[in-house]
């Protein structure tokens, strides 16, 4: 008897263990979906926290967030996975990949459809127009779920401004003022007065929307695959010509195609910077001087300027070929992400735009902007009614077109080509890609 009791005792922990296993098994019976993203470092932590928060909020569904490298790497990986038949459920795709995703026959399921089939309410009108517009199909359906959006803004070093005798509380509003500020800074001995990140996005894409001129025909590609590039207009050429002159005079320092120039700003080398609003967090962390954010400069003589700037960042796509209850999980997760509280927190912690009006109002009410007014600049650039020319850009092979623009602009900055020659060449080379994309996606 005693012996038996002993055995029973020793069985106890075993029982408990098996119970735990059973519980774990039932937890695993939750429908699991995978989410491939490209958010690194602190942003990656935030993404994991979002997935965690969702998983803990209910027990039916489980989201597995997986970091898959930079935007283009993640997209290439997803394309390969799709061809092999095991694409993720949710894929984060950068804004320039939008057309590729949208026109891919059968590779994706529009978000509107996912939500409808799952019986979840989804109202696209709550989104900031410039954000929603970017991801809405010609039929008016939202095809992907806006997630992290940024836009182009202007940063300046207040300390350097003061030293050069400029008013640190009065940032240049127009390009003419940028020029005179640059001249003063230069005269004061600053080696680098102005630099820019993302030259194609800032100086051609956003530039077009900001001045309400078209970047490409067919309403920037929104009305069809037969859109062709238009960024060699006199206004564009004039702006790039000005930049080339500033480069020659030493007012503008070229520092790279992507966000490398941001380092030149927060290291205190360059006094002014145009780049993504999402650089704010990083600049705040690294800058050992006073700086401020201001809206993107424009040309006063252009009618309709300033309009609104264009978004960057990424959206979430639901991939095709999954089970019904998996789509239910996707819908639930998207619903979770659309809550104003979740979005407001995401906006405040990451510096990305609040993508719904509710999230913006919530953030405003919380007094967040009084403490850090920088992020509000980007918001104010975006929350206006968009026009057909400023709604966004939807072009096939857009990532490659950006590379072409980078290549051609570099030949302007090093004086090998004039602004006109380079922009004409970029338009011609980009159009060839558009023709090819149109043929491939007929």
């Amino acid at each position, binding site marked *: 008897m005693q012996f038996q009791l002993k055995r029973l005792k020793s069985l106890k922990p075993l029982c408990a263990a098996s119970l735990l296993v059973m519980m774990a098994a039932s937890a695993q019976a939750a429908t699991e979906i995978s989410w491939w993203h490209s958010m690194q470092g602190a942003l990656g932590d935030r993404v994991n926290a979002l997935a965690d928060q969702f998983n803990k909020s209910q027990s039916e569904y489980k989201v597995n967030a997986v970091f898959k490298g930079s935007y283009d790497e993640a997209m290439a990986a997803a394309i390969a996975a*799709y*061809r092999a038949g095991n694409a993720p459920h949710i894929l984060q795709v950068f804004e320039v990949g939008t057309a590729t995703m949208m026109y891919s*026959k*059968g590779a994706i399921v529009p978000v509107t459809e996912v939500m409808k089939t799952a019986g979840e309410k989804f109202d696209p009108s709550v989104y900031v127009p410039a954000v929603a517009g970017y991801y809405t199909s010609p039929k008016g359906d939202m095809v992907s779920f806006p997630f992290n959006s940024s836009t182009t803004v202007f940063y300046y070093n207040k300390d350097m401004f003061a030293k050069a005798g400029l008013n640190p509380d009065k940032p240049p509003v127009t390009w003419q003022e940028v020029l005179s500020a640059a001249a003063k800074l230069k005269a004061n001995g600053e080696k680098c007065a102005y630099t820019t990140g993302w030259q194609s996005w800032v100086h051609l894409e956003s530039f077009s929307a900001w001045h309400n001129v078209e970047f490409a025909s067919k309403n920037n590609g929104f009305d069809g695959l037969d859109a062709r590039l238009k960024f060699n207009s006199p206004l564009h050429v004039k702006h790039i010509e000005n930049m080339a002159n500033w480069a020659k005079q030493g007012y503008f320092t070229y520092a790279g195609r992507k966000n490398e120039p941001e380092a030149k700003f927060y290291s205190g080398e360059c006094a002014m910077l145009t780049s993504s609003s999402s650089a704010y967090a990083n600049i705040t962390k690294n800058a050992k001087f006073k700086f401020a954010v201001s809206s993107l400069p424009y040309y006063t003589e252009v009618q309709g300027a300033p309009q609104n700037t264009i978004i960057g960042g990424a959206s979430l796509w639901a991939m095709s070929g999954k089970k019904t209850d998996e789509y239910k999980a996707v819908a639930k997760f998207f619903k979770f992400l659309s809550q104003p509280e979740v979005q407001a927190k995401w906006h405040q912690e990451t510096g990305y735009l609040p993508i719904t009006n509710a999230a913006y109002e919530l953030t405003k009410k919380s007094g967040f902007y009084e403490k850090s007014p920088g992020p509000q600049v980007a918001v104010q650039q975006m929350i206006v009614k968009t026009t057909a020319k400023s709604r966004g850009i939807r072009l096939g092979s857009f990532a*490659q077109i950006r*590379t072409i623009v980078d290549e051609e602009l*570099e030949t302007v900055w090093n004086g090998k080509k004039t602004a006109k020659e380079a922009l004409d060449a970029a338009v011609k080379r980009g159009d060839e890609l558009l023709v090819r994309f149109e*043929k491939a996606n007929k």
Partner: protein
Amino acid sequence: MEKRARFKSAWLPYALVAPQILVTLLFFFWPAAQALYQSVLLQDAFGAASQFVWFDNFRDLFNDSNYLESFKTTAVFSLLVAFFGLTLSLILAVFADRVVKGAAIYKTFLIWPYAVSPVVVGVLWLFLMNPTLGIIAHVLRDIGIEWNNLLNGRHAMILIVMAAIWKQISYNFLFFLAGLQSIPKSLIEAAAIDGAGPVRRFFSIVFPLLSPTTFFLLVINIVYSFFDTFAIIEATTHGGPGKETEILVYKVFTDGFKGGDLGSAAAQSVVLMVIVIALTVVQFKYVERKVQYS
């Protein structure tokens, strides 16, 4: 008298080579055939819609003046990498061969770069040469050279050539050193007794005897600079400024991997395949004649 061994069985020899043939077919011929097939297709990124377009992909390529320019860039790049890479490592190997004390340490250090991944090599050199932060750029500025690989095409080319050579130097060094050590000492001693100095001994005896090694390394280095260097370029210049450092394989990578245009990327791979086959044939036919295998 027949000395060659012969199989009596009709099927055994085939069975014995079958695994080798299977591996070759599966891992070499099948992918190559795939590339050939893809090169005549036009597909969207996800492969949902696919059209047979004959040779349109090739026609588009050769109508593109930038693509033709890329051939020149590739030629310049691979010649520079092969020539300076081989010369430098031969010099290093000759010296290492003569070192008496600490030879093992010296050799080990020289082999290290080979263990570094190409991307890291690229980033490393990018930092050294960075116009604002780089040490080398700083030194260059002090002697009056305004280094800027972001906008100066020649500087960008020098940057990727240096990175590519640095990465490959260990490999070349190893082979040269092995080659040097297999040269009979008696030959060199005999020449020395006859009054030939070190330089004369090198050019009349050592270098000709090294020719099989040199030839082998030449082929390897050309293939290396053609195919294995895109990661270095991706990490440093991205093919810029303009297209001045865009070599053929980098374009394959950007168009296929980043642009999702498999048709064009496959067509470019086929072109590359043809070039490398042609180069190798030429090298074996003409250069090899001058090689003395002892």
